[in-house]
């Protein structure tokens, strides 16, 4: 009987079927749109007592759509199941070690989630008068001051939303500074090891980029730098430790040289974790610096963002900072003040405020001493791992590294055909997220490990054992290895096809 009058066959996808959670299976998860059924709803809204009038009485006809925009129609139950299953198809720090170089994927304390959810912080309208937001203003002033102390700078802005936004802000500050000296400089120097955001930001900042090579030590080639310097150079962008995980030992000389031609030093703070409480960019001679609070200060990365990229500057750049800035006023209250020569706003409001609240929480828990311990343990972990895996994965530069180590799989590749990417994929099967691969660009077959300070010695040892196993497997069974990962919900994906047959939305679907 079942099959006679049976159910509507051309059905939406079943929201209650859990075959895509890796706990049960590795089938694909339907999209919300595939689960959608006309007329199904989940929303519940407050009873207001205000009648909803016909839209035609409220909105001029030329602007009004004929019908509501069709988005999706699912039940709350299916919504929960869908996103819970998607979460099971996602790796995260909460699941295990994430030694992704340059990303500082440390443990994100849960207390910060609670702080960011406090109604007194989360429910504040950014345009509310200062009298109603004294807490937020105080928080921001305290954070600015703390970050200045950590970095050795004179003043800061919290507006930039991420590192790249901080970079661009910094470059505009650089320009404003030179302009105020009556100077218009066109070039910015950037090492070849730099992160891609550096040159991209420089371009958007209105500069031409001059690339400075890295020498055999893995450091800025001082000679090349000196040659590139002239009075058309607005400044240099450096990260220190650099992206090879090495401290730029010549920083004092570099700073002197750049300052001598009237240039400024920009510090890409992505690697600040290595030197917290040990050495400060300001003391090294940097004039402008951004921090990635989503790296160093443990605010979670959210699968791609949000971050926060505050910029701190030395005394002579201070007056150009974006505004309005939070400040303690003379009457003892907090308010907004715009610096005299401000470049203007770089954010629609005051920055990624709730990220800032998380960072201040982290800062307060650690205090000055704790931050130094962070750097020490981060560097200790990286060096331990560097030495421990050096047999099969020699460091690109054989010296004490800072918080991360770049190793190379060139020898492995030569011997077995196994590339850095194969190691990275195979490592997933071992229960670890892959390191960063093929960055920095100056190292062949680069694998960049940043173990971070919240991983234990046991985790490092286990990671090393996995890497050893992979190296042996590369010799004994390279084909199998290249087929990895095999235990994940999907295997290696066809990236070329994604670009060739672009399907950026459900409505462009061509597959199945």
């Amino acid at each position, binding site marked *: 009987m079942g099959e006679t009058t049976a159910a509507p066959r051309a059905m939406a996808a079943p929201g209650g079927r859990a075959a895509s959670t890796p706990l049960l299976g590795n089938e694909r998860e339907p999209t919300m749109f595939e689960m959608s059924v006309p007329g199904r709803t989940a929303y519940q809204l407050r009873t207001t007592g205000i009648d909803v009038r016909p839209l035609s009485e409220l909105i001029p006809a030329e602007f009004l759509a004929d019908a509501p925009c069709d*988005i999706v129609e699912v039940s709350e139950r299916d919504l929960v199941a869908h996103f819970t299953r998607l979460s099971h198809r996602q790796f995260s720090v909460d699941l295990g070690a994430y030694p992704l170089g340059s990303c500082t994927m440390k443990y994100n304390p849960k207390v910060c989630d609670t702080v960011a959810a406090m109604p007194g912080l989360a429910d504040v309208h950014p345009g509310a008068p200062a009298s109603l937001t004294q807490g937020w203003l105080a928080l921001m002033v305290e954070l600015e001051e703390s970050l200045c102390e950590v970095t050795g700078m004179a003043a800061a802005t919290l507006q930039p939303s991420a590192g790249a*936004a901080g970079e661009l802000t910094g470059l505009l500050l650089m320009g404003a500074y030179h302009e105020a000296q009556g100077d218009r400089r066109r070039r910015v120097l950037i090492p070849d090891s730099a992160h891609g955001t550096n040159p991209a930001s420089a371009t958007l900042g209105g500069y031409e980029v001059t690339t400075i090579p890295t020498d055999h030590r893995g450091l800025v080639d001082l000679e090349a730098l000196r040659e590139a310097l002239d009075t058309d150079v607005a400044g240099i962008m450096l990260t220190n430790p650099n992206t090879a995980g090495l401290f730029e030992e010549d920083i004092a000389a570099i700073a002197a040289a750049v300052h001598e031609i009237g240039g400024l030093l920009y510090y890409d703070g992505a690697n600040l974790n290595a030197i917290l409480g040990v050495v400060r960019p300001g003391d090294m001679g940097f004039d402008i610096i951004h921090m990635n609070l989503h790296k160093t200060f443990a605010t979670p990365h959210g699968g791609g963002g949000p971050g926060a990229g505050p910029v701190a500057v030395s005394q002579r750049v201070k007056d150009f900072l974006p505004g309005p800035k939070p400040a303690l006023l003379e009457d003892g209250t907090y308010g907004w003040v715009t610096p005299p020569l401000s470049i203007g706003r770089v954010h629609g409001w005051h920055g990624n405020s709730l990220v800032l609240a998380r960072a201040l929480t982290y800062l307060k828990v650690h205090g000055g001493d704790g931050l130094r311990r962070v750097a020490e343990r981060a560097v200790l972990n990286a060096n331990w791992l560097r030495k421990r895996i050096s047999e099969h994965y020699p460091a690109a530069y054989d010296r004490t590294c800072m918080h991360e180590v770049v190793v190379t799989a060139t020898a492995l590749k030569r011997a077995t055909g196994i590339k850095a990417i194969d190691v990275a994929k195979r490592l997933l099967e071992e229960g670890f997220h892959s390191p960063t691969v093929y960055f920095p660009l100056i190292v062949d077959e680069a694998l960049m490990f940043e173990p971070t300070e*919240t991983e234990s010695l046991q985790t490092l040892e286990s990671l090393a054992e996995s890497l050893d196993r992979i190296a042996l497997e590369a010799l004994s069974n390279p084909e199998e290895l290249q087929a990895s990962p095999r235990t994940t919900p999907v295997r290696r994906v066809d990236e070329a096809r994604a670009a060739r047959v672009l399907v950026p*939305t459900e409505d462009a679907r061509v597959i199945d």
Partner: protein
Amino acid sequence: MPDYMPHTEAEVASMLAFLDLESIDQLFDAIPKALQVSAGLELPGGLPEPDVSYAMEGIARANRGAASAMVCFAGAGSYDHEVPPVVRSLAGRGEFVTAYTPYQPEVAQGMLQAIFEFQTLVSRLSGLPVANASLYDGAASVTEAINLAVASSKSQVVHLSTGVHPNWRAVVRTFARGTGHEIVEVPLKGGQSDFDAVAGGDHPGVIVVAQTTYLGTFDDVAAARRRADEVGAVLVVVADPILASILKTPGSLGADVVVGEGQPLGTALSFGGPYLGLFACSLHQVRRLPGRLVGETVDLEGRRAYVTTLRAREQDIRREKATSNVCSNQTLMAVTAAIQLGWLGTHGLAEVASRCVSSTRYLAEQVQSVAGVEALLPGVSVARDVAITTPIAAATVLERLADDGFLGGLAVASLASEGDGSIDPSLRERTIVMSATEKRTKAEVDALALALGSAIR
């Protein structure tokens, strides 16, 4: 002091021994001693978590204006919408919160698919076929849209409607210092962009209008499209993602790029961030798209899979030639928006949009019935905000309303600076822009009107 690091002293010692080091300080030997911090950072000592929680609670309490403590009529781009527990709970799952950018798609299908769904939703709401994985906020989106449009039109002259939020315009101007774009602000007349007022100068390569202005009026996108066609400009439209449910899509009206602030889609007011920059464009612009894009593909067994695609646009590959410098974006807010839109659905979003317009109209009527309070633009339809004028300074009125428990709106003077083209200079100091979302009740609106009566005295 307690912290989050696992190392016991014995382990530190054994690790140092393995490295043939005597002290942890030796790890930093490459750093010139003279540069090193000698006496420790001048920061207070670390505090245990519970102490810090109490301290942060104290800070939070000092924000009298929290929408949970006051009735919120403030809008102008950031709105007090219902975000149900189910959305907060799903968006707060650790797997989403503590993931990095999906560099290894095999273990990131969760985020990738969620972003793909977000892109689909933004595409549907904007009426354009491609949407990216998010940018920082509305201001960043409009800035990037201008960059894309300039690159496409090859003219750096930008006609930017003053119907766009003043803060966003400020951001556009700041970043134009670097790109050298010439930003010409288009004044409003009767709540709509008055292109004739700027007709004298160079032909623009880019025109930017807000479908609904920050003052709550409807601008005429179709007219802007005609203008753009006349001068050969690329048209960028700023749209509200809630009203998108019930208005003609900017795409259908001819927008080349649609941008917006996604905060109303499930993100709390958050004192301005993290918010969510929305960005959609037409297919022929896709290789100039800023930020990340997720595309569908297959894995080597032919299973449907998602991956970030067209990466050659991006800074990590293209470096100084990249279309944008953006790297970290606001993915978690994008996922939140996808969840919130899933919860609202077609009907819920339309209901919210209808309520916002309807309740704001009711709000307008009630406050304008107070003697001395006038519409800034009498007779002009209100979208989801309404601008009113008061006989005394708007800032004073708002302070008084706050004492009665209302966040009564925003003073336009706190947003638009003197001479701003969006508003009659003589009224700027006395104008408040206010909004009623789907959460506001009749009792609250009526009480506000009553309080306003006393506040303007």
